[in-house]
C-alpha cells in the first residue's frame, strides 16, 4: 500500500525528515510515536502533498506509483486522507457541501456514479451515527466555532464518509474527552478492513488500547529509531523516549 524509502524532507530549507523508512501493507495499522518536533506532522503533510514540503531524497510509493508527482487533490481522489492535527476553520464554506463535493469528486474518479442529495443524506446520517456527531454540525461552516474535540470528531466523520484507502490520523486523540476517544476509536475500528490502511500519529498509548496497531514506530529527530509491536507503546509510556535515543546513538 505505502512504501517510504529513505525519505528526506526539507521545509523552508531546513531538513526535518532525515531518512524515514516505512512499509504499510493493506489492512495494517501503524502507529507513529515520538517527541514533540520530531517530524510526525511533517511526515503526515508530505504524504498529503502540502506545498513547501520538499522531498530532497528518497521515495514515497503508494499503490505502485510515485505519490510525490500527484497534487493534493489527486492524492485525495486516489484514496489518501489526512485527518489534521489542527483542523482549520473555514468560515462561509458549508461542512456538508464540502463533504458532498469531496465524495462526488472521489466517486467520479473511481468511475462510480455521483450520489444525489437523497442518497448522500442517507450516507451522512449513517456515518454521523458512527461517530455520534450532532446533526446541527452539518449546517455549520467547516469547523467554525467547533471546540477542539469537535473538530477532531469532524475529521473522523469525514473519514467515515470518504472511505479512503490510506488514512493518516495526526493526533486525532489529542483533545478528545474519555467518552469521545472511545466513540472515535470505535468508529475507526468499524472502518478497518483488509483493503484499508491506517497510520496513527499519537502521543498516548491509550488510543492503541482501542485501535490495536500492527506496528509501532518511534520517530525522533526525523528518523525512525525503533519499530516494534503494540507492546512497544506500553514500554514508551513507562520509560519515555530517552532510552530509545540512547540505544540508537
Amino acid at each position, binding site marked *: 500500500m505505502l512504501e517510504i524509502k529513505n525519505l528526506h524532507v526539507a521545509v523552508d530549507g531546513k531538513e526535518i525528515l532525515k531518512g524515514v523508512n516505512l512499509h504499510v501493507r493493506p489492512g495494517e495499522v501503524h502507529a507513529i510515536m515520538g517527541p514533540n518536533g520530531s517530524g510526525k506532522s511533517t511526515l503526515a503533510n508530505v504524504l498529503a502533498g502540502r506545498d513547501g514540503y520538499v522531498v530532497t531524497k528518497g521515495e514515497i510509493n503508494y499503490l505502485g506509483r510515485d505519490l510525490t508527482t500527484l497534487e493534493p487533490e489527486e492524492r485525495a481522489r486516489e484514496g489518501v486522507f489526512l485527518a489534521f492535527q489542527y483542523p482549520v476553520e473555514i*468560515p462561509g464554506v458549508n461542512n456538508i457541501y464540502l463533504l458532498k463535493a469531496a465524495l462526488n469528486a*472521489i466517486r467520479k*474518479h473511481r468511475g462510480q456514479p455521483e450520489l444525489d442529495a437523497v442518497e448522500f443524506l442517507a450516507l451522512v446520517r449513517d456515518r454521523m451515527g458512527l461517530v455520534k456527531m450532532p446533526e446541527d454540525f452539518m449546517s455549520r461552516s467547516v469547523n467554525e466555532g467547533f471546540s477542539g474535540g469537535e473538530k477532531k470528531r469532524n475529521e473522523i466523520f469525514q473519514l467515515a464518509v470518504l472511505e479512503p484507502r490510506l488514512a493518516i490520523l495526526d493526533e486525532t486523540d489529542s483533545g478528545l474527552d474519555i467518552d469521545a476517544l472511545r466513540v472515535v476509536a470505535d468508529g475507526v475500528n468499524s472502518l478497518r478492513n483488509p483493503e484499508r490502511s491506517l497510520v496513527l500519529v499519537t502521543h498516548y498509548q491509550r488510543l492503541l488500547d482501542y485501535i490495536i496497531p500492527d506496528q509501532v514506530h518511534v520517530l525522533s529527530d526525523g528518523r525512525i529509531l525503533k519499530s516494534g509491536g503494540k507492546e512497544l507503546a506500553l514500554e514508551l509510556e513507562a520509560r519515555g523516549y530517552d532510552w530509545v535515543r540512547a540505544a540508537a546513538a
Partner: protein
Amino acid sequence: MSDPAVHEFLESWRGVTPVPGAPWFAPQRAAARQAFQARGFPTLHDEDWKYTDVRPIASRRFGSGTETGVDAGLTAAASFSAAGAHELLFLNGQFATAADPAPALPAGVIVMPMSRADARQNESLAAHLGRYADINKHGFLALNTALAGDGALIFIPDNVEVTIPVSLLFASAAGPQPTGTCPRNLIILGRNAAATVIECYTGTDDGEYLTNAVTEVRLGAGARLEHYRLQQEGKRAYHLGNLSVQQDQDSRLVSHAFALGGALARNEIDVRLAARGAQAVLNGLYVAGERQHLDNHTRIDHEQPHTTSAEHYRGVLTGRARAVFNGKVVVHKDAQKSDARQVNANLLLSDDAEVDTKPELEIYADDVKCSHGATIGRLDDNMLFYLRTRAIPAAVARSLLIYAFAEEVIQPIGFAPIRARLEQRVLGRLPDAEVIREFVQ
C-alpha cells in the same frame, strides 16, 4: 477664487432640466452653485480624498444623454419589478413610466418622481430637501444640489409598514460624448414606519458617463429602513453616491452598499444618530478588478446616549484594482453608553492590487464601547490545502474561498432577489462559478 475650469464644467453641463424646479428650491440651488464655484472639485490635498483622484471627472465636460436610448435589456437585467418590487425607473436621469403597473402601496404612502410632485407634495419636499446632505462637505455634494435632476420622493406616514420593496433604478447609456446625471432622492419615514428601499445604478459599458447621486433620509422615532445601494455601473463610468441619513429616537437603519461597477466610484454614507437609542447597521462589499478604483467613505455620528452602530465592510481586489475604506465614527460628548463596532476585511488576490483602509475614531464621551479592526490578507494557505486534501481542485478551492469571504456580507441581505443577484455577480467573476454554485445553493 472661481476656477475657470469649474465655471466651464458648470456651463457645459447638459443634464436634464433641473428638478425639482419649484421656486422654493431656487435659493438652495444658487447657494450650492456658489459653494461649488468657491470650492471646486476635491483634490488629493483634501484629507478625505487623498486616495481618490477625481481629475478625470473634473477635466471632462458632461453633456446630456437624454437623446440616447437606453437598451431595454440593460434595465431588465437590473430591474427588481419582476421580483415584486414597486419600481421607479430613471433613464439617463429622466423618469420613465414603467410598462407594467407597479404593485399597489398602502394608502398615504408616496413613492413618485420629484418631477411630478404637486403643490402639497412640494411642501413635504420643501420641509426636508437639503436638510440632511451638507453641501459644504465637498464639491460633489454642492454640485448635486446645484444641478439636481429627477429622483424619487418617498414618504411613508406614521405607523405604516410597507412590506413591498421600493426599487429606484437609474440606468444610463453613454453617448459619443460623456454624459452626466445628478439624481437626487428623498426618503422620509414617519414615526414607527418601515420600508425597504433599493437604489440600483447601472449603465452601458461602451462609453463614459457620470452619475453623481445624493439620497437624503430622515427616519422618525421608531422607524425602520432597510436600504440597499447596488452600484453596478458600466465599465467606464464615474460614480459618486452619497447617502445622508438623520435618525430619530430608537429608529433603525440597515444599509447594504455593494460597489461592483464603474471605473472610478465612491460610495459615501453619512449617518447622524441624532436621538437616544438610534441604531445603524452598515454592511458593505466592494469587488474591484482590472484598473477599477472603488472608494468607500462612511461617517457615523453618535450624537446622543445609547446609540449603536455596527459596520462591516469587505473588499475583494484583483488585477491592478485599488480600493479605499475610510470609516469615521464620532462619539459626541453627550453620547454616553454608545456602542460602535467596525470591521473592514480585504482580500487581495494579486500583487498589483492595493487597498488603503483607515478606521477613524473620535471619542468625546467616556462611557462608551468602541471597537474596530481592519485586515488585508491573501487567500489562506492552510484553508486551500485543507480543501485540496478533500479532493477539491486548487482552482475551485480558490474560488470557493473568495466566494466564502464575500458571502459573509451577502448572507445578511434580507431581500432574496438581491442576494441572488450579488451571488451571481460575485460568482460570475470567478473561475469555476458553476461548481461553486453547487456549494452555496
